């Protein structure tokens, strides 16, 4: 017993001595912050990149004799990540290694995500821009000839007209219905609210081509292929998308506003029309514009509704029409280069249109979203919740204004 106690004491003494001798060093060493990134770390990163590249280059081109840049990149990424983890594991602690690994994986992911968008844009402009001319924009495919003296490669005018008409009619049908549905879900409510929301979500994921075959079976079989049938299909696609966007925006509108309006004895339609909708205006515009941007680019549902047309047909209610997306789809399947080129032109015009609508949606929406609700409200009703001193003047005027207009209405009745 005595021996063991002595042994234990000795060991304890040893441990204490160790601790004393190591203590100051430990403080120095442990000052590693996992997020610190010094110039030496940059060097480690670059060297790892270089070494993984060279290892893969030897394996890839010297041993397996293979070409193809994509495969190289696909294999390079995991090799680099593995190597980077290993190097950091050797230099620092396990924590640092894992943190750096995750950071590089995530950053790489974002980079890969952006890559297709950049490449797509370059591709569309590179192929389409040299072909874009006044002639291409203002002529149809009528009388296209590619042999002989007078070559007429055709243009996309009929497709531009078709796309604009179809999307406009689809918007006129779809957007009011979508906003009303969102109002039903968010403002009116009732027994069906929950099931309508589920249905709208499910419908927004329904493939576009299903909307096309649906309109074919309900409309085209009874009447005929026409631009209007295409509009109906686009409206079916537009409806759930815009409903969901609008519902999200209406949800953000402060409840105090609704209550204030009700307190002024405004009827519900009046509350929605002059308080809720104006407050959500910028968000409403964004969601509808995004819906329109998506519907401009739809191709699949147009195959079985508008059918396609080589000549100008400005009447959307009778006869087959053309659309930019459908033209591009039909042209690139043809074996003649000049006709594929026409497809590129159509794709470029389509891309520019979608991009323009998208930018407009962004300009109206984000950036002002935080203050947008307030500002648009001030301009319409001039009333803010939890008013501060600065807002008081506008506040009073606003409430009085609403009151007056309500009184006036009563007088009118």
């Amino acid at each position, binding site marked *: 017993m005595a021996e063991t106690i002595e042994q234990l004491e000795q060991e304890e003494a040893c441990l204490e001595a160790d601790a004393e001798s190591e203590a100051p060093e430990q403080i120095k060493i442990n000052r590693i912050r*996992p997020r610190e990134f010094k110039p030496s770390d940059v060097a480690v990163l670059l060297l790892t990149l270089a070494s993984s590249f060279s290892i893969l280059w030897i394996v890839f081109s010297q041993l397996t004799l293979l070409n193809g840049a994509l495969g190289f990149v696909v294999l390079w990424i995991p090799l680099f990540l593995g190597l980077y983890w290993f190097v950091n594991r050797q230099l620092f602690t396990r924590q640092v290694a894992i943190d750096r690994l995750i950071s590089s994986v995530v950053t790489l*992911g974002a980079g890969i995500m*952006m890559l297709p968008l950049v490449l797509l844009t370059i591709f569309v402009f590179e192929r389409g821009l040299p072909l874009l001319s006044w002639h291409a924009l203002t002529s149809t495919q009528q009388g296209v000839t590619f042999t002989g003296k007078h070559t007429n490669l055709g243009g996309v005018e009929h497709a531009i007209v078709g796309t604009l008409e179809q999307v406009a009619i689809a918007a006129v049908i779809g957007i009011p219905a979508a906003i009303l549905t969102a109002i039903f879900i968010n403002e009116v409510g009732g027994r069906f609210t929950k099931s309508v929301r589920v249905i709208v979500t499910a419908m927004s994921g329904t493939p576009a081509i299903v909307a096309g075959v649906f309109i074919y*079976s309900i409309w085209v079989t009874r009447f005929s292929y026409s631009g209007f049938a295409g509009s109906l299909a686009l409206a079916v696609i537009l409806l759930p998308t815009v*409903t969901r966007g609008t519902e999200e925006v209406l949800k953000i509108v402060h409840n105090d506003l609704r209550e204030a309006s009700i307190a002024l004895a405004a009827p519900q339609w009046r509350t929605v029309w002059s308080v809720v909708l104006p407050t959500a205006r910028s968000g409403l515009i964004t969601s509808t514009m995004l819906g329109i941007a998506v519907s401009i680019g739809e191709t699949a549902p147009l195959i079985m509704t508008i059918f396609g047309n080589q000549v100008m047909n400005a009447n959307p209610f009778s006869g087959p029409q053309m659309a930019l997306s459908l033209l591009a789809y039909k042209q690139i399947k043809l074996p003649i280069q000049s006709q594929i080129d026409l497809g590129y032109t159509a794709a470029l015009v389509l891309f520019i249109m979608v991009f323009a609508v998208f930018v407009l949606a962004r300009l109206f929406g984000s950036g002002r979203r935080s203050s947008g609700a307030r500002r648009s409200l001030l301009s319409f009703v001039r009333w803010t919740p939890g008013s501060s001193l600065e807002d008081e003047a506008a506040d009073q005027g606003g409430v009085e204004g609403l009151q007056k207009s309500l009184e006036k209405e009563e007088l009118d009745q």
Partner: protein
Amino acid sequence: MVTQTVEQFGIPEKVQIKSKLSFEDRAFRGLAKSAGIGTFVILVLIGLFLLIESVPAFRSQGLHFLTNTVWQPTGKHPKFGVASALTGSLLIAVIALIVAIPVSLACALFINEFAPAKLMSFIPFKNFLTAAVDLMAAVPSIIYGMWGFFVLQPHMTGFEKWLSDYLGGFGVFKNTTGIYTSSFLIAGTIVGIMCMPIITSLCREVFSLTPNGEREGVMSLGASRARIIRDVVFPFAKGGVIGAIMLGLGRALGEAIAVAIIISLSFPITFHVAQAGGNSIAALIAIQWGSGGSLGTSALLAAGLVLFIITLLINMVASRIVNASKLGAR
């Protein structure tokens, strides 16, 4: 005094408070309600009319419509089915998800956890990334398809050859034809790229609902960003991420044009992803439309019905999962 002021304004002393809705309000509520019920009606009509129009196809083939691996709707003995289109759709969707999930999750995490709000103090980096993701979702599928066909495909064939040469023993990557274009792998990759923005924006939304208290608590214990992601962000967002992936799956199953441009239709069931030839329901409808007479059209509408039912089921389950996870996070 009080009565005086009341008289001044000409308000009667006894004000009857009515809780009855006015005529306008009832009309307004009725209108909104009819719009809400209208969406339900549209959904029912889609199912109903596709069913009615596909009766000739089902009468001709019966349940063999789901098992046949040929497509000959014309002639004396028409025979057609969507078996290979079904497996093809699933194969493309699986490849698409394998491509899309890691990239989307990484991008969503980058935007939420890593990206600085402002780059060089004047570029709104985070907003820019979000806008770019939204733009990717708005780019027409025809342009994705064209890019995939003319740009991605030539780069993919080398990789496919490498896969079939070195990993061909697994069977999936085997190439028996020697042609590497128009394959499932290329179509799946393009569809995956198209699914990325949807999955990313949904995941980002779910990640941003992570409660700040937990996040700061773990931070104060000295956790690295990797630990925060693993121990706080992921556990809270698990359900939402699964739902987002399922919505992406629904989208991948229904993509028609990009697949139709890239793939060359073949009707035997195949799992060789790196060789030419494949099939998918949506692409089948897009490619075969207008050929095959009335029975052929009916068959395509029946295929559309099958696609509709599958995606509807997936989306309903997915939206339920997403909503449950959002409520849980709140």
